[in-house]
């Protein structure tokens, strides 16, 4: 959208201003990281300065205290399994609803879309009651099932918009060549939907990986804790013990930051596609 493409003095000043603003945005990360390797006294006496000595053992203790390997594993299992099942069931449902727009399917789609309005707070109390009745509380399976139900509307909405633009001729050709309906979906339609798979997986990953409230209500055993739950309960025990808390926070944000830096292009694309349609 830029008109002058020459790099003028004006642009240079602009560039410096934006870089300074970027540094302001990064300051919290600076404080977080340098203080995570200080002694407690060092944190209190000079929070802004470079560490007098690097106390890497903070990380060892935080790692053990929040049981990082277990929390990381739990977060990973919940996110990956929910993601994969969500794209599977939502893409299938959306495909069927687009290709067979019966009265029932049109009403069903309307209900899915309308339910996107429902905030989590409006279902959480009865949901917890039902989860304990059906023994789904305090289990990974119960948590994953909850994500499938609560995540289905947005995912179906996104797939629905996408399938509508997949040309029917390709499928018809495949049908004539003898593929059955299931073959057509998995062998012909799925590969075409790849970009939307990526978008939906990214949007759901950011939501599920960072979600605190649902797992905190669902899971009570310490060995099932995800990263946000482990961090929260750790903070309850070590309030204001910054030499323990800060390395735990650094550990907590590292996986998602790495995920972002590696998949940045897809994440930005996914967010643009998801928000324009959402």
């Amino acid at each position: 959208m830029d008109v002058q493409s020459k790099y003028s003095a004006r642009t240079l000043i602009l560039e410096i201003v934006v870089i300074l603003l970027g540094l302001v945005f990064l300051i919290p990360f600076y404080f977080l990281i340098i203080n995570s390797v200080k002694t407690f006294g060092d944190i209190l006496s000079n929070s802004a300065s470079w560490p007098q000595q690097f106390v890497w053992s903070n990380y060892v203790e935080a790692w053990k205290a929040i049981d990082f390997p277990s929390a990381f594993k739990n977060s990973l299992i919940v996110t990956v399994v929910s993601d994969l099942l969500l794209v599977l069931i939502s893409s299938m449902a959306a495909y069927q609803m687009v290709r067979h727009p019966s009265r029932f399917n049109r009403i069903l789609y309307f209900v899915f879309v309308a339910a996107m309005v429902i905030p989590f707070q409006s279902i959480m109390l009865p949901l917890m009651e039902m989860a304990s009745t059906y023994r789904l509380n305090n289990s990974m399976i119960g948590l994953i099932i909850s994500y499938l139900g609560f995540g289905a509307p947005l995912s179906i909405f996104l797939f629905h918009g996408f399938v509508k633009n997949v040309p029917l001729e390709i499928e018809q050709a495949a049908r004539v060549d003898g593929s059955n309906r299931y073959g057509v979906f998995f062998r012909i339609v799925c590969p075409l939907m790849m970009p939307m798979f990526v978008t939906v997986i990214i949007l759901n990953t950011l939501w599920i990986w960072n979600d605190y409230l649902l797992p905190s209500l669902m899971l009570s055993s310490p060995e099932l804790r995800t990263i946000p739950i482990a961090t929260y309960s750790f903070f309850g025990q070590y309030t204001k013990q910054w030499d323990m808390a800060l390395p735990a926070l650094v550990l907590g944000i590292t996986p998602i930051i790495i995920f972002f830096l590696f998949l940045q292009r897809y994440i930005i694309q996914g967010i643009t596609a998801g928000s324009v349609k959402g």
Partner: protein
Amino acid sequence: MNDTRAAQAARHVTRTSGQRKLSQWIQQLVFVGPATFFFLFIVIVPFFLGVYYSFTDWNGISRQINWIGIENYTHILTKDPDFRNAFWFTVRFTIVGIIVTNLLGFVLAYLLTKPLRTRNILRTVFFMPNMIGGLLLGFIWQFIFIRGFSAVGEATGWSLFNLPWLGDRATSFWGIVIVFVWQTAGYLMVIYISALNNIPKDVLESAEIDGASRWQVIRNIILPLIMPAVTICLFLAISWAFKMFDLNLALTGGGPFKATESVALDIYNEAFTNNRLGLGTAKAVIFFVIVAIITSIQVRATKSREVEM
């Protein structure tokens, strides 16, 4: 090849309509069944159960649940200062939050569509906070406000940084706004950038030739052309701000003295601290109604824009 195809077609025709119906039913069940089942079980049933519970004295412990009519609702609307406070806090926070984050998001997008050498890395920097969940962000910023700000205050002598940021009514409100903006501006920036990139270059060039000032170009050309993105960003931000929970819980816990308690946090406390689940579900129903109203306005606004384009 042609033979087999003809044979298949023949078989297709001779298949009875009953068989075809059955296979269509199975297909419907296989494709739509799983998503519908989980959705009904996790969203629809609890939602209506919640509406029912909102008319009862359910406390989560006793098996006896009594129907008490609209008593919960009258209590919330007439005798519940906590809910009223939470509601006004949420409204004020939403209004201030969405204005500031949209302004910053747009300005960043505007600057980062200029031919800056560092613009790709800067886009990454501004977007990165959005990757971190509200809970961890809240804890990180708790440290920044308590230790980081005072360190900056000592170094610079600026009294702004020496305020008790999370310990005071007014400053804790702005504290949450700061963190909210830091977290969300980059996301809106991404949407604004994609809208700005879609503006045809010749429109801007001819405006410049005609001698329009920078501000005139923004106001009279860029803003009208990116209106759909503005609508999207406004309502995304409303939805985040109005439903805020994690950030609130981790940063201030609603304090000091419930001064920064959002509606979502109030519902949570009513249910899990006071054990008044019937009252909590009634608040959740009210919360739902407000969110539904905002969203339907949003859908209407977006739709009417689409017609215009």
